[in-house]
């Protein structure tokens, strides 16, 4: 079976299986076994099947050599490897750094050697060494057309490339493990439970039946939505499943809906996401209004005619010669005609200039429609910001920890929040330089801020939540700096070790029934599996490694991001200083707070003996997934594996140079392959190693060996501590800017409603009441009077006639006869009168 048929089949099945289980559970949830326990088997079976299917697809992709590009062989690539160099030089010709660029060339040659291992492992094709010059191998097609509005097609389509396959494998793997984990974690829900965190009005705790099956039903729905988001072939479908994962996270955060905090958190997450999605809708409108398509790739329609997708519209493959000789390089970002025209609409309509290709080219030179492209990019990125909790909209994710821990592990660390990064990566070809820079800044701010907040957090899950936010910030930073592969690489590795961390914390919470690290400590004696798997996770996120030899997965991904930032710094000193500074600092802080968490939880002496006594190791069903994940957390980043993540990502990289930022002068984005070369690579590795070691040392000093007293530090840096403790007052800020005004305004409206409109209505009602009283009086005295009068008359008449009714049969006979006689006489007289 040809891969273009088999891959969609496999992945489509993998996508739909969770939907099936969801449907079944929705329909027959409580009836599935005792307390719906079969529902969990069903959901788990479904997700495992889709995992196997995804793995199969992965195998087909890898061993089928489907990653090879049209021009994918080594000879070509090396020759082509030069051209980007020239192009690079051409781009920043205004810069006087010729020597650097030469050096860059030299490095390019040398780096090829230095990374020979990669080169060989990559099967001879030059991914990672150069800018690919052809569209990556992908399969896209319409499955089902929902609707067509003129040029706009709304369809269920798929876009499958190595990124899709990678994401599928990752998501289904983690989801399967977490399903298993949830068996153990959610078993309380199997029977009616008493929720001690909910106090009813009568002072008792809430008693409610278990919701075991419902949890798995939500999980299935989430898996379906997430996979649909990954496999989506057009941005509209992405949006739909985007919202679906949103609603799933809403359900799951609010799983303990009776807890006010949970329901508030759910609402918060949903509303904050709405803000981002609104921007996304703007982006969608910009795209549709100007391009008239939602599809990512080119799709052959029924007539066999190729309909251009967004990518090929924004980055045309052919070389185009402009009117004034300015040529357009293949696959480089180019404002599409649609945007130009729609931007120049007033010129076309009012001044009547017909839009010939030359005219359009002239307009394009005048940057017509460029801002439209920026808006499209920014809008889509807004969605990403909301979904993956970036700087302005990051407030929801920590609160989302109200949900059950498996949910936090799956939804709020591994997959859903990563969806924002995934979308940013998908849309990378469309982002202009300006947008990329904004992304980079957002990411940098986020990662630093979240990391700093995490220092002071004492809730174990919140620590992890903030670390998630900051790691997402890393990814965004990577993508924003042109490190497309780096960002997505970190996405994958982070998914593994962060879910591992969360599940470990879940295991801890499961054992201690508390989130507060201050009441833990020394747990590693009681729960070794959890402790050491978590240690592995911590090391992974810390990026521990023996430099240039081997390291945990986090090491490689974070390293590549930092390297990219360094190469960016080298090209743009000002921006680069800030961005890479923040990134590097962030890595140090990460090391600090992660180890702080681990020490506070597992090391030292138990602070709360009451808790400590009840602690016990979690059942195998919970720690076996931990072991599996820890294996992945260690190995997911190894670059020399034949199917290492970076190689796979390179197979999906869209050709063409990184976008330029014409509006911001002096901002140049380096090609990513440069960052793999020295000096950046080695610099980065050395830097983060030392910075992280510094953070580690601090953590050990504070919490491990207790050389320093954290409380003293607290009091010493009291103001900073307060700021951090209050999370930079973001919630208060939003409360002040948005919530209070809205509340005030709505109160005013409510008062207007209550006092003015209601008063009006009440007056009207009073008037009507008076009127009806009057009417009633009329009715009672006049009309009823008439009727009663009539009745009285009838009564008296009947009374007077009563006497006739003597009850004497014979009198009646006589009456009859008299009547007959009288009638006859009457008739006769009338006849006589008539005749």
């Amino acid at each position: 079976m040809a891969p273009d048929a088999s891959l969609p089949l496999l992945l489509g099945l993998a996508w739909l299986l969770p939907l099936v289980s969801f449907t079944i559970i929705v329909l027959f949830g409580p009836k599935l076994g005792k307390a719906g326990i079969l529902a969990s088997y069903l959901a788990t079976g479904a997700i495992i099947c889709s995992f196997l299917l995804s793995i199969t697809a992965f195998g087909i992709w890898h061993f089928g050599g489907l990653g090879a590009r049209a021009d994918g062989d080594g000879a070509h690539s090396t020759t082509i490897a030069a051209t980007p160099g020239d192009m690079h030089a051409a781009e920043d010709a205004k810069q006087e750094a010729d020597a650097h660029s030469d050096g860059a060339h030299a490095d390019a040659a040398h780096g090829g050697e230095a990374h020979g291992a990669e080169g060989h492992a990559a099967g001879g094709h030059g991914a990672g060494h150069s800018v690919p010059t052809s569209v990556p191998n992908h399969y896209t097609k319409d499955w089902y057309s929902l609707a067509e509005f003129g040029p706009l097609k709304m369809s269920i389509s798929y876009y499958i490339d190595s990124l899709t396959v990678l994401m599928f494998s990752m998501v289904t793997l983690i989801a399967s493990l977490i399903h298993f984990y949830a068996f153990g974690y959610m078993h309380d829900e199997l029977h009616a439970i008493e929720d001690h965190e909910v106090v009813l009005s009568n002072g008792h705790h809430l008693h409610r039946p278990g919701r075991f099956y419902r949890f798995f039903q939500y999980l299935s729905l989430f898996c379906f939505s997430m996979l649909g988001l990954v496999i989506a072939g057009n941005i509209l479908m992405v949006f739909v499943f985007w919202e679906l994962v949103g609603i799933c996270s809403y359900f799951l955060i609010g799983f303990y809906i009776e807890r006010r905090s949970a329901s508030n958190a759910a609402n918060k997450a949903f509303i904050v996401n709405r803000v981002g999605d609104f921007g996304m809708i703007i982006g969608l409108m910009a795209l549709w209004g100007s391009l008239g398509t939602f599809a990512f790739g080119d799709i052959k329609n029924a007539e066999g005619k190729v309909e251009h997708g967004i990518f090929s519209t924004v980055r045309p493959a052919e070389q185009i010669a402009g009117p004034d000789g300015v040529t357009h390089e293949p696959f480089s970002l180019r404002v599409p005609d649609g945007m130009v025209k729609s931007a120049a609409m007033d010129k076309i309509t009012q001044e009547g200039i017909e839009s010939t290709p030359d005219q359009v080219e002239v307009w394009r030179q005048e940057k017509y429609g460029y801002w439209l492209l920026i808006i499209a990019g920014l809008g889509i990125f807004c969605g990403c910001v909301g979904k993956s909790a970036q700087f302005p909209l990051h407030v929801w994710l920590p609160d989302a920890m109200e949900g059950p821990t498996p949910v936090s592990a799956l939804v709020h660390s591994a997959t859903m929040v990563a969806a924002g990064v995934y979308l940013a990566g998908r849309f990378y070809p469309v982002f202009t330089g300006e947008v990329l820079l904004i992304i980079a800044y957002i990411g940098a701010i986020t990662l630093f801020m979240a990391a700093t907040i995490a220092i002071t957090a004492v809730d174990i899950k919140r620590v992890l939540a903030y670390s998630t936010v900051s790691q997402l910030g890393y990814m965004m930073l990577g993508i924003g700096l042109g490190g497309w592969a780096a960002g997505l690489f970190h996405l994958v590795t982070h998914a593994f070790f962060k879910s591992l961390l969360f599940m470990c914390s879940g295991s801890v919470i499961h054992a201690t029934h508390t989130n507060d690290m201050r009441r833990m400590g020394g747990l590693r004696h009681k729960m070794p599996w959890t402790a050491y798997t978590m240690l592995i996770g911590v090391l992974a996120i810390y990026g521990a490694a023996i430099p240039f030899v081997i390291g945990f997965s986090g090491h490689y991904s974070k390293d590549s991001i930092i390297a990219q930032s360094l190469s960016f710094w080298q090209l743009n000193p000002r921006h680069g200083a800030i961005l890479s500074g923040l990134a590097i600092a962030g890595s140090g802080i990460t090391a600090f707070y992660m180890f702080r968490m681990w020490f506070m939880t597992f090391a030292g002496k138990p602070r709360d003996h009451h808790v400590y006594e009840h602690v016990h190791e979690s059942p195998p069903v919970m720690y076996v997934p931990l072991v599996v994940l820890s294996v992945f957390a260690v190995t997911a980043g190894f670059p020399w594996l034949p199917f290492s993540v970076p190689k796979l990502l390179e197979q999906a990289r869209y050709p063409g140079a990184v976008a330029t930022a014409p509006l911001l002068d002096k901002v140049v984005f380096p090609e990513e392959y440069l960052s793999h070369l020295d000096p950046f690579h080695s610099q980065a590795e050395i830097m983060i190693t030392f910075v992280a070691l510094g953070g580690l040392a601090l953590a050990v000093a504070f919490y491990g060996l207790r050389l320093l007293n954290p409380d003293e530090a607290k009091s010493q840096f009291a103001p900073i501590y307060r700021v951090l403790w209050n999370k930079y007052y973001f919630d208060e800020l939003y409360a002040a800017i948005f919530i209070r005004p809205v509340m005030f305004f709505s109160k005013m409206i409510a008062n207007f409603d209550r006092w003015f409109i209601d008063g009006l209505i009440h007056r009207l009602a009073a008037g009507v009441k008076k009127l009806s009283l009057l009417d009633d009086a009329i009715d009672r005295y006049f009309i009823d009077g008439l009727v009663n009068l009539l009745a009285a008359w009838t009564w008296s008449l009947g009374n007077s006639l009563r006497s006739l009714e003597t009850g004497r049969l014979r009198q009646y006979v006589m009456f009859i006869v008299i009547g007959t006689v009288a009638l006859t006489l009457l008739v006769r007289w009338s006849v006589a009168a008539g005749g």
Partner: protein
Amino acid sequence: MGPINWHTFFFYLYALVACGFAVAVVISTSIVRMALYLIVALGATAGLFFLAGADFVGAMQLMIYVGGTLVLLIFGVMLTAQGPLVSLRTTGGDWIVAMLLAGCLAALLIPAGLTVSSWHTGHPVTTAEKDAQDVQTVLVSTTIAHGVPTAGGLPDADSNGIPDKQPITAAPLGMGLLGARVDKLGDVPEALRPGMSGYLLPFEVISVHLLVVLVGAAYLARSKRRAPNR
């Protein structure tokens, strides 16, 4: 003076008997005698019917009225035949009023009966008409009864126009009750005949009515506890 018209003679005989005994019913005070007189009066009426050529109706009168109804009546009489009840006296006032009413009615009805001149005298039934009638009867009897004409089913017209044999009316009446009006062969246009059901529906209604009356009477007459005599 011409020959005596025996038809007329017998008419007056029966009429006198009927009227006389009817009046006797009114006058009599004993309920049982009233019943007896009534029987005679009704029997005489039956005779009048025979004379008028409605022998089936006459026989019906005898059978149902005299034979059935009056037996019931006397039955009732005897059930309630106790000394004081047999003769309940009526006050004179009632009598006077009743007589006045009777006078009024008589003054209305009898003149009304005498107004139309063509009713004053019957007419000697001519041969043609009798033929027509007899032919009907023959037609009916032949078609119904083996096609054999009934013996003496064909009355002759004697000098006085008295049909010495009663005309056959039973079969035509039966056919009429079944919906076929044999006495008006040519009268009804062909188009209307299929829809013309004669007296079939009333016949059925009467039958059901009789059944209901049977049940109702049985229900009413069943003896309940007697009230203490007042």
